[in-house]
């Protein structure tokens, strides 16, 4: 009865493969004005974007590295290549036109199959460039725009991009938002017109192949009044012995009575510094749902933020973080209630094992004027051994009396009573432990489409290996 549950390291074999980079275009390592201008020329930026990049670079130099989170001293921007264009890569809507080794990469990751079977559209980014973007005809016929951001910058949506790009996440927000503003490349733009419901999900998949490189894709989604969308984001990379950097940015605009679900399965390799920024603004009656699974990366700073800006806007966050050997994953969420009768519900879970560090960090803010707001948070952490560490650091900042705020957090190990109960029902101890740990993650996997839930369960492959005292 006093045994322990052992989880194998997540197998990265499916994700940990790489190709040579002969013929790839790269900017120099590091960060300076010449590099920014070179990226801007490569991207054929409009003038305002070129100036925005340069202003962001100034901000980057002005801002400090966070002094409150995991150590990122192993990340030296002077060693990072901020832009890599694969050989012969150009954005195409035809899968057969994608360069062969890139096509093979995404096929090994199962992306085309997923598109055929369950997606309304797919975007695939390889290093710094979108290489494929496609959306089903019937979805496009509804007026849904799903394209790469660079194309959108020069097309009929150019003004929409200009008035939304980095307005939710200004480059003054923090050092890595500034870095993103300076060197961003790739990413997707989605516009769902008023009243349109996209019944099956769109997905963007980000693959970083080059060692010592950064990926800085920008995702901008506008779900107009009364519309709805489920967007899925996946990411992976082969493992190298040098630091890689992901400093993407996601900006989500959920208009009046609109609904957006944003699901992420993050499986970066364990040399990755994942310093991603995600933010949503939700107007009156809108609903924002985050489903987040964090499994990869060496270090993560990841806190999807929601601004509930309209009356009766809602936010649901369901997240799980799995920190194994060599990982320090600092994840969580922020929500700002800025309008009356807004509501947020938070379910966060984490598992730490083999020396992994998992930190749940959150902030629930209820501003003056957000009368009638409600927030409930439930945070559970499972420690699978005493070599690991699990922390919860929530903050509640309440500035109105007419609010109802609840928060619960629990840290512990697998309950021996629960094992005893299941064993009394005929399960072996090993089966009992497996079911308990699987059940712990179940509240997240059940929020995902079936094929992604299977993917997540593959990532949390549980193995029970006997017992020790």
């Amino acid at each position, binding site marked *: 009865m006093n045994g322990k549950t052992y989880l194998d390291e997540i197998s990265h074999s499916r994700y940990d493969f790489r190709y040579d980079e002969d013929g790839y275009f790269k900017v120099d390592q590091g960060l300076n004005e010449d590099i920014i201008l070179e990226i801007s020329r490569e991207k054929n930026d409009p003038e305002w974007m070129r100036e925005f990049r340069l202003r962001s670079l100034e901000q980057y130099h002005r801002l400090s590295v966070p002094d409150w989170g995991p150590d990122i001293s192993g990340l030296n921007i002077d060693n990072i290549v901020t832009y890599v264009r694969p050989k012969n890569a150009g954005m195409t809507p035809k899968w057969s036109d994608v360069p062969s080794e890139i096509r093979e990469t995404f096929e090994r990751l199962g992306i085309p199959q997923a598109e055929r079977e369950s997606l309304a559209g797919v975007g695939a980014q390889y290093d710094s460039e979108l290489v494929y973007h496609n959306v089903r005809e019937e979805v496009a016929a509804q007026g849904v725009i799903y394209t790469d951001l660079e194309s959108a910058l020069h097309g009929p949506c150019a003004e929409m991009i200009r008035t939304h790009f980095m307005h939710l996440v200004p480059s003054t927000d923090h050092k890595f938002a500034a870095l993103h503003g300076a060197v961003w490349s790739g990413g997707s733009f989605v516009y769902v017109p008023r009243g349109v419901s996209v019944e099956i999900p769109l997905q963007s998949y980000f693959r970083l192949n080059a060692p010592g490189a950064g990926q800085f894709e920008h995702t901008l989604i506008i779900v107009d009044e009364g519309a709805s969308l489920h967007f899925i984001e996946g990411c992976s990379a082969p493992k190298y012995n040098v630091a890689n950097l992901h400093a993407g940015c996601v900006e989500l605009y959920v208009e009046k009575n609109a609904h957006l679900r944003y699901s992420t399965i993050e499986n970066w390799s364990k040399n990755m510094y994942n310093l991603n920024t995600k933010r949503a603004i939700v107007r009156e009656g809108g609903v924002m749902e985050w489903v987040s699974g964090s499994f990869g990366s060496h270090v993560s700073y990841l806190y999807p933020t929601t601004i509930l800006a309209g009356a009766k806007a809602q936010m649901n966050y369901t997240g799980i973080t799995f920190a194994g050997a060599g990982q320090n994953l600092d994840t969580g969420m922020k929500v700002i209630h800025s309008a009356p009768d807004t509501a947020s519900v938070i379910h966060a879970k984490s598992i730490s094992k083999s020396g992994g560090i998992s930190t749940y960090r959150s902030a629930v803010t209820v501003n003056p004027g957000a009368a009638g707001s409600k927030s409930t948070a439930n945070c559970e952490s499972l420690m699978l051994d*005493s070599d690991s560490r699990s922390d919860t650091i929530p903050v*509640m*900042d*309440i500035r109105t*009396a*007419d609010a109802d705020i609840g928060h619960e957090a629990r840290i512990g*190990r697998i309950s021996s009573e629960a094992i005893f109960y299941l064993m009394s029902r005929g399960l072996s101890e090993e089966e009992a432990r497996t079911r308990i740990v699987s059940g712990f993650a179940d509240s997240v996997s059940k929020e995902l489409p079936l094929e992604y839930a299977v993917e997540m369960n593959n990532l949390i492959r549980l193995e029970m290996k006997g017992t020790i005292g």
Partner: protein
Amino acid sequence: MDNIQINRIPSPTWNRLGVNHAALTLNAQLLCPARPVMTDGNCRRETPAEFSVPGSAGPAFEQFIASVIPVAEQFSSLPEDTLILRDLMTAGQARRLHLRAARGSRLILLSRYQTSPDPAHLILEEIRILAEPGSHVSVVQILDGDEQDRIVTSLGADAGNGSKIDVTQIVLGGSENYLGGNILLRGTGCSLDAAVNYLCCLDHVLDMNWTVIHSGEKTNSRINAQGILNDRSRKVFRGTIEFLKGASGSVGDETEDVMLLSDEVRNQTVPVILCSEENVQGNHGASIGRLSDELLYYLQSRGPDREDVIRILTAARLLSAIRRIPDEETVRWLRQRLSDEET
């Protein structure tokens, strides 16, 4: 004038939330030593033990107060004996108090902080406690300053095998109150039971920093903070439970219940659990909000109007701490004080 940071949280978070520490400006020249602590029971006026656990306000505060009061007052209880210490401080005073609860003894510290005509409007106290095996220490602190008084208390304690530490902090008034505790549960089977009860009105600031470090096996901690915020008052509660590797079989519970009575209040709650040991249970629960409509309706249906209901509930929250006070004289004083407030 010294600008110092106090009540620093052990695990900082986003700086822009303004909860990582409190900032204070202090003037050493305005302070003088407090009158000596009154003792009731046998004691030694020395503490041979080292006090290695710093107080909750942090090193900058302790450095400052040591510049005002170079030598701490020291008291040791006798083994298996009882010692009661009565500590009354008024505005303009500072004190450093180092206490050793000898093996198997009972040590009770009753501290009251009150206003005075002194223009400094400042009270500072450092309390360090060593609870030897099997001892039982009770600390009661009642903060009762006036509209201008700033009170800073910094409590640090080191608990040995099987020792018990109870702390009761009651905040009745004061312009700015800074308090908390930094408790190391070092010995096997030792425990902490802490309760903070407060009422903040007008523009009062209440800033708390509680940290419990579970180091020994089978240690237990419980921190319960409950209070009421009215008018434009602001409260920060930092509560950290940390389980070190080796604290197997330990349990830490932290609860907070805050009633908000005005749209101009600001409540910040930071309940932290840090865990490096698998075989522990750490729990936190917080409930923050207005007086529930159902409760208000029920109580009003019994006769009192809304203002009376709020007065009754406020008194109930403060009086709930009375059962924790192991001294009749202090209980009588507190009842009278709350009765005066009513009238």
